[in-house]
């Protein structure tokens, strides 16, 4: 779908509803790097990193613990209520400068917003962070929560950051034949070709799988009811 991946040095938004698999996809990205000997960094706010790592282990996203042990991966976690945005930003920037990761996952970008003293600062704070990541040449994925679980509107929640975001991957739940499915689609890839079809995403013990469930469907992205005709043959 991404025609080979995300460009080195780019910033990608993983926009998705709660439970849509954003964190796991981000961890999969880190894991793929670690398995190739690249340095990875996780910077999170909400879910405790031990829980994230345990979840990765359960679904077969490997290499993370080994990466940490081998000094290839670094995990930084802040409780979102702790401190002010300047401390969090400083922590992110300092760790990036020290670790020099090839791949960075910022899990829950909203964590910065929770800690801001004056909301009108956020856009400047984000562009400061984005500039520094660009300067360091880090390839960044950040997750952010889609506020609406279902619905036709998709609001990109973070101002000031979208300008510095080259790619957007959308992940959400849809109702399909009285079943909730997780889907993934590419919303934007700057200056590059991509496959715009939505795919079902399945998280199993063997890792993340993307399926061609909706080959014959329309209107998947808005999460509304789909025509009940037929579910396309699952191909892999």
């Amino acid at each position: 779908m991404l025609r080979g991946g995300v460009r080195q040095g780019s910033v990608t938004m993983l926009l998705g509803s709660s439970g849509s698999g954003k964190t796991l996809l981000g961890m999969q990205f880190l894991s793929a790097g670690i398995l190739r000997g690249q340095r990875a960094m996780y910077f999170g706010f909400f879910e405790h990193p031990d829980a994230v790592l345990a979840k990765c282990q359960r679904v077969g996203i490997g290499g993370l613990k080994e990466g940490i042990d081998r000094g290839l991966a670094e995990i930084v976690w802040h409780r979102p209520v702790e401190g002010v945005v300047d401390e969090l930003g400083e922590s992110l920037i300092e760790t990036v400068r020290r670790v020099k990761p090839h791949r960075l996952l910022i899990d829950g970008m909203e964590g910065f917003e929770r800690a801001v003293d004056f909301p009108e600062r956020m856009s400047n704070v984000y562009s400061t962070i984005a500039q520094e990541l660009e300067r360091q040449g880090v390839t960044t994925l950040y997750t952010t929560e889609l506020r609406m679980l279902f619905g036709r509107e998709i609001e990109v929640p973070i101002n000031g950051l979208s300008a510095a975001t080259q790619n957007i991957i959308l992940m959400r739940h849809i109702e399909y034949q009285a079943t909730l499915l997780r889907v993934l689609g590419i919303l934007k890839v700057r200056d590059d070709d991509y496959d715009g079809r939505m795919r079902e995403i399945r998280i199993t013990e063997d890792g993340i799988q993307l399926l061609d469930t909706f080959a014959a469907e329309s209107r998947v992205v808005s999460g509304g009811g789909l025509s009940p005709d037929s579910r396309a043959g699952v191909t892999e």
Partner: protein
Amino acid sequence: MNSPEYAPPRLPTGISGLDHILDGGLLAGGVYIVQGPPGGGKTILANQMCFHQANTGQRAVYVTLLAESHARMFAHLRRMAFFDETVIADRVYYIGGYSVLQTGGLDALVALLRGAMQKHKATLLVVDGLVSAQEASSSDRVFKQFIHEIQALADFTQCTVLLLTNVGRASGFFPEHTMVDGVLHLTDELSELRPLRHIRVLKLRGSAPLRGLHSVRISDRGLEVRPRLEALLPEAPVMERLLATADKLEFALPELTPCCVAECVRAR
């Protein structure tokens, strides 16, 4: 002295974020007002600077013009990491100036300050409770004369002076502000139940401070200052880097990022 390389000697505060905001520290021999509400952190800031002087082999004098005893202040400071009882009366001297001011007025106070600065060869003098000196002044002119005498003392001895005061408004006209080398303003406010402390440099002669509000945290580690994130980095133009030719980083998910490399398939 006029060569472009000449930079007036500075007195670092020892609080790294604050020194950054202050463009390296205060001027040696400068006079500064530190203002803020009660509980805003003025006393902690000033004491922390005194102990920093002691740690760098220099001396500081702390003069209180308030009726409150030093014991109460120490009880509060004792939990701070910077507080080191062993240097008190050796490198950091505490002097009560309240009764001298009450009985002898401003002249007696100036004499006390002069004596303490010279006797201890202090590089930092703190006057806590400037408002008491203001109340002891019969007119604005007398108060300004007092500030002027402190300036002359500071300049002569190259001792930096901090004047702590509760009068903590960021705006409004204070004649003493026009006289001193800098004004640091501490605030302590609530934002939706969350306490927020900030520091702001209202004035700083001979320096290019980072302007605006910077966050302050007070804990057992003392007072910490975090420069506003967006003020820290150079305002480089945001240049769209040529990503189009950069290598691609894959996810090791064949359907998402079709794999060309055999190792990718193996990794699964």
